């Protein structure tokens, strides 16, 4: 795409000043340290605490548009009164977002805004601006195996994008909203090119094309069982996935027994109770069947309609799997297994 706005340059020292500048415009949400080796998006209070060179955050920014737990409405138990909960828009600048996490937001948009569009999601989502940052892929990232533009420096869809270079960052301005954010914060123009792509360490052999092909005949593969054996069924992989959105709905009654709330909480298809049908039967009682369902949702079911992978290659489910299962390994094994079968 042709560059419409000039590239500018920012030193590491400029960053906190720039964040303060952004904070004058809008709340800024950015990655922070969370614990010893982990990162988390949070509202910025001290710009110096923002960390831009991180590997991945435990939860993606989906938590802002689809809170882990939320009240859908309140009621009186006699049914005479029901009140929709007021949903506040998240008017914020999301700073330091990796390419795959924005891609994941676009996928959530698809789920929540097509068909019966959901006002809760839309209200939260519509005031968001995104400033991306490039990253160095670690052992788990594999975005370019599944996304058309999955490179760590791919800036499509962002308003502004930071490319890490020696001594600082190149700032790429992509939209008018992005340009507006820079008003009052002049930066020197940068005369040069956007740095080359970083290469990935993890790969799906044959990329997404191969995945689509293999998932059309992977249903009965023994690979599912071989990984399910190690899986303890904790559901972590669902909860950390930026494109998982399933939820459960439950009524909570206040102690006066007269009022209460209908609550939704995030759910996950790896959890045994997720597929419980009327009468108590567990529809996908085998872990292998649940694991298969999860991966089919990432690589086939929605993908065959939209042509896009519903896995964005963030590597969270592998990095955080308590049993040490890597999604790339599962997919590659499926590929090898099917190659063996067709004698290729």
């Amino acid at each position, binding site marked *: 795409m042709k560059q419409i706005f000039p590239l500018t340059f920012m030193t590491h020292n400029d960053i906190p000043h720039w964040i303060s500048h952004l904070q004058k415009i809008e709340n800024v949400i950015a990655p922070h340290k969370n614990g010893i080796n982990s990162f988390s998006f949070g509202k910025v209070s001290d710009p110096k605490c923002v960390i831009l060179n991180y590997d991945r955050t435990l939860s993606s920014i989906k938590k802002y548009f689809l809170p882990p737990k939320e009240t*859908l*409405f309140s*009621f*009186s*138990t*006699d*049914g*005479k009164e*029901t009140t*929709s909960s007021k949903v506040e828009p998240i008017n914020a600048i999301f700073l330091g977002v990796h390419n795959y996490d924005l*891609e994941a937001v*676009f*996928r959530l*948009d*698809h*789920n*929540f*805004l*097509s*068909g*019966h*569009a*959901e*006002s*809760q999601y*839309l209200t939260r989502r*519509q005031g968001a601006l995104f400033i991306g940052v490039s990253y160095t892929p670690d052992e788990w990232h594999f975005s370019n195996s599944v*996304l*058309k533009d999955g490179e760590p420096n791919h800036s499509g*869809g962002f308003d502004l994008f930071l490319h890490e270079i020696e001594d600082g960052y190149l700032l790429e301005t992509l939209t008018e909203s992005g340009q507006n954010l820079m008003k009052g914060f002049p930066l020197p123009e940068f005369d040069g090119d956007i740095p080359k792509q970083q290469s990935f360490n993890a790969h799906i052999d044959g990329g997404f094309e191969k995945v689509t092909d293999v998932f059309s005949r992977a*249903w009965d593969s023994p690979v599912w069982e071989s990984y399910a054996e190690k899986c303890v069924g904790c559901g972590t992989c669902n909860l950390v996935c930026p494109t998982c*959105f*399933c*939820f*459960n*709905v*439950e*009524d909570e*009654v206040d102690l006066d*027994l007269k009022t*209460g709330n*209908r609550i*939704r909480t995030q*759910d996950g*298809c790896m959890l045994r109770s*997720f597929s*419980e*049908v*009327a*009468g108590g039967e567990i*529809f*996908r009682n085998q872990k292998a069947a649940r694991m298969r*369902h999860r991966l089919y949702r990432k690589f*086939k*079911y*929605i993908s*065959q*309609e*939209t042509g*896009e992978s519903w896995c964005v290659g963030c590597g969270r489910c592998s990095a955080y799997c308590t049993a040490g299962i890597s999604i790339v390994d599962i997919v590659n094994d499926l590929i090898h297994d099917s190659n063996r079968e067709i004698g290729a």
Partner: protein
Amino acid sequence: MMQIFKSIPENMEANLYLPSMGTITQTHNLTKKEKWFEIQMPETHSFSYNPGQFVEVSLFGVGEAPISITSAMKNPGLFEMTIRDVGVLTEKIHALNSGDLIGIRGPFGNGFDLKKFKGKDVLIVAGGIGLVPIRSLIHTILNDRKSYGRLIILYGTKSSQDLLYKSELDQWETHPGIEFQMTVDQPSPDWHGIVGVITTLIPSVTLDLENTVAAIVGPPVMYKFVLLSLLTKGLSDENIYLSLERRMKCGVGKCGHCQINHSLVCQDGPVYHYPELKKLQEALK
């Protein structure tokens, strides 16, 4: 990735998950376990539906459950449902009577595509509580009888105590426009009709194979056998529709609970064309 966000849907509901309050206008105990309700939705609520659709029924503080509509669309906002008492929510709904309020969302799901049935002979196979949703189709056909060919209804239950809509069954038996047969699995001494599982009724029915469309609703175990006997009879896949029972939660394609393979039962179903259903490995397992 396409940015669908740019096109914000116009007719978005304020809160997809907030029920409207319907008023119960009539009730009737059908069996020990099944109770029939007629519900009037508020005038302002434009409530119209197709046969085969379902609603989400709420009692606040207890929960919500998907319930099939059992009536044919007549007056806007008026519908009927029959509820089997299987748990706490349904037990509490059973305790409600005329004049009581009940939370309703929907109607949801696709329902039967009447275009596929019009001008054709219609074969209905209902097992047990499967008669509840399919009664909406039967009534729709009866209300517009001349638009359809023969109407053949085969109905089977476990015992004669489980038969639903008994006075209606009597009418169907003598109705000139209906070829009706029923069977029970475990007859009581006062039962004089046919005995056996539902498939015992199928061989003796003569069908114009080219011109018959079948609709099957019943417990999952029944499908395999009914399908087998219909296919043996020579009916083609193309002419078969089934309705699936799955645990729907949100009803609006968001929560993921009703999904079988790529299909969301609350959106693409509960009624499926058999050739489509065959592609879903998880559907008839």
